[in-house]
């Protein structure tokens, strides 16, 4: 299939890059500067786009690629892809669900534990040589804390299953109630925030869920409450979050995503009740390889006219 030209939007994975190069005619978007040169020379040959959470396939890109047949995203999130446009033009879209579910859920749990038990702060305390001078202070017990999940999809359910093993009562807000679970359902996010101690954002980013965690929700969560975000930065009104943390109106936060990555509000750097990770939810060797394999398999299936493995459109 090395006559088929595939566009990779950003340097997301060396392994994926190699696999694509071995199988297809790979064109790397970031090798061209300015972008206009790229469009002039390649736009008519590109039949597939491999995008990720940084650069997907927006309307502008799709319109400039008249031969585009498939967008295979190296992510489960689809917020960077103009799905409506793809649908209109009959362009297929695939993503990478399931293979990254466990890893993202693990990061959510890692953040919850790190924030409540101040693990990073303790590590800093020891490395700075402060232990001989005196003990670290008490932290809060994690087991049994009430956990509220926004979005009980694959990742949300995986988080619930893990938190349950710590004796945490689980509640959730989702587009629809899931009666097959035993978890407590709330029909709106404010009620969920009022009734939990740790609020975890695990839903997809859509127009409706943009800034779903706003000042009102943060206030409902309160000065003892903790926000964990492993969804998308834009789920949360970031300036509101920062001021709530600085003013002590929110108890703590564990964040893997931000509104304007890789920029992270510097005011958070001095806070001990915050844990910050650089969007690594699915970043393990095993999972990134599995994601890459899924992208490749979807592309091959498409060009061999076989059923797609994980189609979205």
């Amino acid at each position, binding site marked *: 299939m090395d006559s088929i030209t595939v566009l990779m939007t950003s340097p997301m994975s060396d392994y994926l890059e190699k696999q694509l190069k071995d199988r297809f005619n790979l064109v790397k978007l970031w090798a061209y500067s300015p972008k206009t040169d790229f469009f002039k020379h390649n736009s008519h040959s590109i039949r597939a786009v491999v995008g990720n959470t940084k650069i997907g396939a927006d309307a502008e890109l799709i319109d400039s690629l008249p031969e585009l047949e498939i967008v295979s995203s190296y992510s489960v999130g689809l917020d960077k892809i103009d799905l409506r446009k793809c649908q209109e033009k009959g362009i297929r879209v695939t993503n990478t669900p399931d293979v990254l579910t466990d890893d993202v859920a693990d990061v959510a749990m890692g953040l919850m534990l790190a924030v409540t038990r101040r693990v990073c702060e303790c590590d800093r305390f020891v490395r700075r040589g402060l232990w001989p001078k005196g003990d670290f202070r008490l932290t809060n017990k994690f087991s049994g804390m009430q956990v509220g999940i926004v979005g009980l999809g694959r990742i949300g359910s995986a988080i619930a299953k893990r938190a349950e093993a710590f004796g945490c009562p689980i509640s959730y807000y989702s587009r629809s109630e899931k009666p097959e679970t035993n978890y407590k359902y709330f029909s709106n996010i404010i009620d969920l925030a009022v009734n939990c101690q740790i609020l975890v954002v695990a839903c997809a980013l859509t127009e409706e869920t943009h800034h779903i965690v706003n000042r009102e929700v943060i206030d409902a969560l309160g000065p003892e409450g903790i926000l964990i975000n492993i969804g998308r930065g834009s789920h949360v009104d970031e300036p509101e979050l920062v001021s709530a943390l600085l003013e002590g109106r929110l108890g703590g936060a564990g964040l893997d995503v931000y509104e304007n990555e890789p920029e992270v509000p510097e005011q958070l750097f001095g806070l001990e009740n915050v844990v910050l990770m650089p969007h690594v939810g699915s970043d393990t060797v*095993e999972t990134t390889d599995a994601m890459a394999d899924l992208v490749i398999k979807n592309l091959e299936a498409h060009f061999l006219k076989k059923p797609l493995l994980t189609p979205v459109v």
Partner: protein
Amino acid sequence: MATEDNEVEDHRPLVLIHHLPSFKLPLQDRLITHFRLFDSLASPEASSVRALICVGPTPVTADTLDHLPSLRLVVGSSAGLDHVDLAECRRRGIAVTNNEVEDHRPLVLIHHLPSFELPLQDRLITHFRLFDSLASPEASSVRALICVGPTPVTADTLDHLPSLRLVVGSSAGLDHVDLAECRRRGIAVTSAGDANSENVADYAVALLLDVLRRVSAADRFVRSGLWPQIGEYPLGCKLGGKRIGIVGLGSIGSEVAKRLVAFVCTVAYNSRNKKPSVLYPYYANVHDLAVNSDVLVVCCALTNETHHIINKDVLTALGREGFIINVGRGALVDEKELVQFLVQGEIGGAGLDVFENEPNVPKELFALDNVVLSPHLAISTPESFEALNEVIIANLKAFFSSKPLLSPFEQE
């Protein structure tokens, strides 16, 4: 006007309430159901009254008694009677009673090193009389002691306490107590039992997630402002599918296992003895467990047998891709060897809450990103101390009422 039909004869005896103007007797309304009361030595009834209640420190002197020729009883309302002329009362054949409340609280020694305090002592004093020095005269009669933190209980300690029958530990570990000596002397020992197990298990999982997914290292990276410059951050290791080897499947080990199963891990264990009711695979020695594990979680008690149970041999068996989490005691691990393995990259990483020589931590570890360090904190939540207090009080109460102890230490 009273008629024969309406008149209720008053059979209540007469009692004088003897008080200084500034003193009142509370609850007098209770007394009037039983007694007719008056309160002045000048009253005509003073000549016939046979009993008086002495309010607080109101003096009862010879002069007082001269006003009360029929008096036969002085009832004091305090334990002390120094305001009553006891000799004069005795001379006149007047009986005197006081209000001593007998202290039924059992005596307990708080055995602690100078730097250690027992939190929540105020709860204990509602149940027990406390003292804290082996030099105190009470040491010879005390039957129970609370051992605060790692304060050693040695043969010498026990020599000072000839009546001791119970040592109540305040931690899960009892390596600071000479258990053999206690057994020899017929002294029972209790531990903190399960009071802290959940907290320690939570912390073990927290350390493991941190090491594998680089939580602390990533947090350092973001706070350094390097993300916009460097962009790429090293990949972590997936927890799901890892083979967890638990060293010591006691209360803490079981809680760790329960949690990690939910992360899609498999669990195997080593313990002194195989546990017939447990379904996880058992390995008779730690080396074999290490060969078959990706992660070792050390949760066992420190004894002579388990000292340096994690040695060079075990670390080699665990391998380059292996990880170790220690929430037990520092001396369970040959720390020098572990540091070498970590520095040389011969082991995948470590999460350590305990060290051989706390609070000193080998400085070579400070430069490593695949190590997470913690200042022996696994139980440090307010809930831990509450739970601990309950276990301590429960064990002591059981002992003093000859009931079975709540969390006796038993060799497994």
